[in-house]
Each structure stands twice: as structure tokens, then as C-alpha cells.
């Protein structure tokens, strides 16, 4: 089976698993809070296991924490679901949780001497706060009905995959990022069929946390530069524009224009530039 077919099969399997949880949660309104984040975790970890194999626990290789953080981050997804009603619980619980989660994968870089303790702590705090902020801003997308919200997140996954592959020079992180977008992308199909379908805040918040984790991993362990990391983070704020309260009086297709353009034009342009630079420098090396 070719690599492309394998990726499609893997993404399809993970998407179907996530979709089962999401549809079940959406139908059973009360369970949506729990099943939204759980669907994403199940989908992502199926992806991870099929692409890279099931990692050890605790992982020897720090980049394997992504698999386990999808489970350890589950309470953050649940908190995101109740965050609107309990702001202080979300503010402190999720912030402290995000900070703790980012200690696990990045402590080895301090231990190996790649980062000094001061630099390492600054990075960990920075990643934790950035993830929390993105989760906070993006979570309302989970309440948006229909295909637009998952479409924007899936597009972010595609841009992210391109940047991680051509900029970060990590095929496995790029695969994880792209297929994470593809898992959420199944929401586009469901949204087109069931116009009132929502992903739920938990799934969106957890997806954003995993994106930040993958980008931070690519910066810490692979070749993604700080500039590329910052660009990805800024692009990740684009989908949140769709759910901005100030724009709620406009129809969905109008609200979709700005984030879609940002992701397609700026994100697509950045990936295109990275691709050109990569193919110019690499000779005939295209991974492997």
C-alpha cells in the first residue's frame, strides 16, 4: 500500500472513530461536554499509533508525549466545555494544567543541555500560556453550527503540515499535524449533512492545544524556527475570528471570508515559500 493510501486509510479510520463520539455527543445533548473532547483524543491517538506506533509510558523520546498529552489534556477539554459558565475555574485550572502539560515533553531539553534552565523555563511557560490563550479564544468555535468551524481548523491543519514538513523538516510531526486537521475535517462532512451539528468546545480546545504542542515540539526538537512558530501561532488565531462575538450579527458566509482568506493567502503563501526554499536547497531529497 502506498504512503498516500496508508495516510488516507489512517486519517479515515481516526475520523470515523472521532465522528462516532461527536455524533453521539451531539445527539445526547448532556453528554456532548464529555464526548466532544473524548472523540478528538480517540481520533488523534488512533492516528498517532498508526503513524508512529504505540509509544512507551513514560516515553523515552520526549516527542512521544503528544500521544499521552492527548489523554492527559482531556480534562482541559472538559474544562473548556464548562468554561463559559465557570470562568475562574477555566482561567486557573486550564492555565495551570496547560503549564504542567508542557513541562513533560520539554524538560528533557533542559536535561540534555540543549536549553539552559532559564531558557527552558521561559519556553515552557511561553508554550503553556500560548496554548491556554489559543484554547480560550478558539473554544467558542465549538458552539458554531455547520461546516465552517471544522473547515477552518482542517485548513489550519493543512497549513501546519506544510510548515512542519518544509520548515520544521519533520515528516512525522507534519503527518500528525495534517491528519489531526483531517480528523476535525470529518466535521465538515457532518456539518454539510446536519446543518445544526456542532463539534463542541472540548474538541476545539483540545485540537488547539495539540497544534501548539506539535509546533512547540517542532521548534524544540526539530528545525522549525521561532519566526515560523510565531507565524503558525498567528495563523491559528484566524479561525477564532469566525466566532468573534462582535461579528455574530453577520451571516456565516460573511464571517468566514476573513479567516478563510488569512489561512489560504498568508498560510498558503508561507507554505509555498517554504516549499520553494526547501526544493531549491535540497537537491533531490524529499524526505526519507
Amino acid at each position, binding site marked *: 500500500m502506498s504512503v498516500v493510501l496508508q495516510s488516507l486509510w489512517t486519517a479515515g479510520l481516526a475520523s470515523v472513530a472521532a465522528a462516532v463520539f461527536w455524533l453521539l455527543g451531539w445527539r445526547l445533548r448532556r453528554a456532548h461536554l464529555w464526548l466532544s473532547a473524548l472523540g478528538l483524543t480517540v481520533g488523534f491517538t488512533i492516528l498517532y499509533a498508526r503513524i508512529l*506506533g504505540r509509544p512507551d509510558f513514560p516515553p*523515552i523520546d*520526549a516527542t512521544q508525549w503528544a500521544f499521552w498529552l492527548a489523554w492527559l489534556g482531556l480534562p482541559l477539554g472538559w474544562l473548556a466545555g464548562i468554561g463559559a459558565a465557570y470562568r475562574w475555574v477555566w482561567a486557573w485550572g486550564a492555565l495551570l494544567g496547560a503549564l504542567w502539560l508542557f513541562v513533560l515533553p520539554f524538560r*528533557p531539553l533542559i536535561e540534555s543541555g540543549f536549553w539552559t534552565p532559564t531558557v527552558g523555563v521561559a519556553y515552557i511557560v511561553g508554550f503553556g500560556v500560548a496554548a491556554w490563550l489559543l484554547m480560550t479564544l478558539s473554544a467558542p468555535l465549538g458552539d458554531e453550527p455547520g461546516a465552517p468551524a471544522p473547515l477552518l481548523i482542517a485548513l489550519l491543519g493543512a497549513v501546519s503540515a506544510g510548515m512542519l514538513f518544509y520548515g520544521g*523538516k*519533520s515528516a*512525522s510531526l507534519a503527518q500528525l499535524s495534517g491528519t489531526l486537521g483531517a480528523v476535525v475535517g470529518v466535521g465538515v462532512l457532518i456539518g454539510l449533512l446536519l446543518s445544526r451539528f456542532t463539534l463542541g468546545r472540548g474538541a476545539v480546545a483540545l485540537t488547539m492545544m495539540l497544534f501548539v504542542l506539535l509546533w512547540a515540539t517542532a521548534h524544540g*526538537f526539530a528545525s522549525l524556527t521561532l519566526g515560523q512558530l510565531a507565524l503558525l501561532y498567528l495563523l491559528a488565531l484566524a479561525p477564532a475570528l469566525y466566532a468573534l462575538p462582535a461579528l455574530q450579527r453577520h451571516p456565516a458566509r460573511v464571517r468566514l471570508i476573513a479567516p478563510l482568506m488569512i489561512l489560504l493567502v498568508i498560510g498558503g503563501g508561507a507554505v509555498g515559500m517554504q516549499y520553494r526554499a526547501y526544493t531549491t536547497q535540497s537537491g533531490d531529497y524529499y524526505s526519507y
Partner: protein
Amino acid sequence: MTKRFRTRLWAHWAILATLAGSWQSVQAQPVTYRIDPVHSFIIFRVKHLNTGFAYGRFNTFSGTFVVDERNPGNSSIQMEIDANSVDTGNQQRDDHLRNPDFFNVRQFPKITFQSTRVRKINDTTVEVQGNLTMRGVTRPLTARVTLTGRGRNQRGQEIIGFETTFTIRRSQFGVNYGLNGGLDDEVRVTIAVEGIRQ
């Protein structure tokens, strides 16, 4: 031949024999050698897309080995390789090899080998058993090491050369990327070292 000349000849032979004896006793002691990185090489090859072999090398490494000819079991070797020095002649591929898909050099900057047992096979070959640590995973490794020569370098220092070739399975060290058809699991490693007597 005068009696005086014969006496002198015997005296010279006696001195030479004494020197030769002491030389042998020196050689019988365990001797420590430091790996000369300029005249040593670590190369590896792996099959690409089930078609051709891709070759690479590590440019920076260090280590010492002890040679005990009388009792080879007392011989030993330890090596430390800078994983960041991987070189396949293509910058993009080297960057890829350094990142978490392969060596993850920022977390695991060193690859190490420490022998645990050396067994003599014949006059020029020993079997070395030891532990290879890569990406934080330690696995036992056995390799046949062949003596390739002895001599002196331009500074008059005693030097000795060894070579070994062995195969590892990268998946045993957690290097799983591209296993399904991209890159073979088996990696053949050749280490040729020249050691300078300490």
C-alpha cells in the same frame, strides 16, 4: 676470533636478549589506546526505497580501547559519537536525520558503546560484546573486530588499527520512521579505528 672479541659478542647478545625480554613483558601488559579521530571512520548504510544503498558517516567521535594480548578478556573499548555530526552529503537529509524522525539529537546528543566482554577468536580477531545506547535505548551488541595493522605514526607514537562491520535494527532503538517501505530497518555499520598508544 680472539677471546676478547667473543666475550664482547656474548655481552652484546646478553644485553639484546634482556632488552627483548623486557619489551615482551611491556607488550604483555594491557595497553591503552586513544582513538585518533582523523584516521578513524564510522560509516553506515541503509537501503532506500528497497532499491539502492544510502551511505552516511559520523564526523565527530572519541573513545579509548585497552588491548591486553596475554589476556584478551581484559581488553575493552568505549566510544562516544556526536549524533549531531551525521553527514550523508546532503544538508536537507542531514537536518532530517538530526530531528525526531531519526536521531533526535537535541534530546540525545550522544551515541555510546561500552564493551562488557572481549573473547579471542584467533590471532587477529576478537569478539566484542557490549551495550550500544542510542536515543536513550540501550541494547546488547556483539561484533567481530579484526586487527588491521600496527605501526608508528610520524611522531613516533605506537599506533594500532582495527575494523568491524555489524548490523543493527534501528527499530530496536525507537527509530521507526519510514519503516514501511521507505528505509530498511537494517543498518550496516562499519567502524575502522586507528588508536594512538597512551
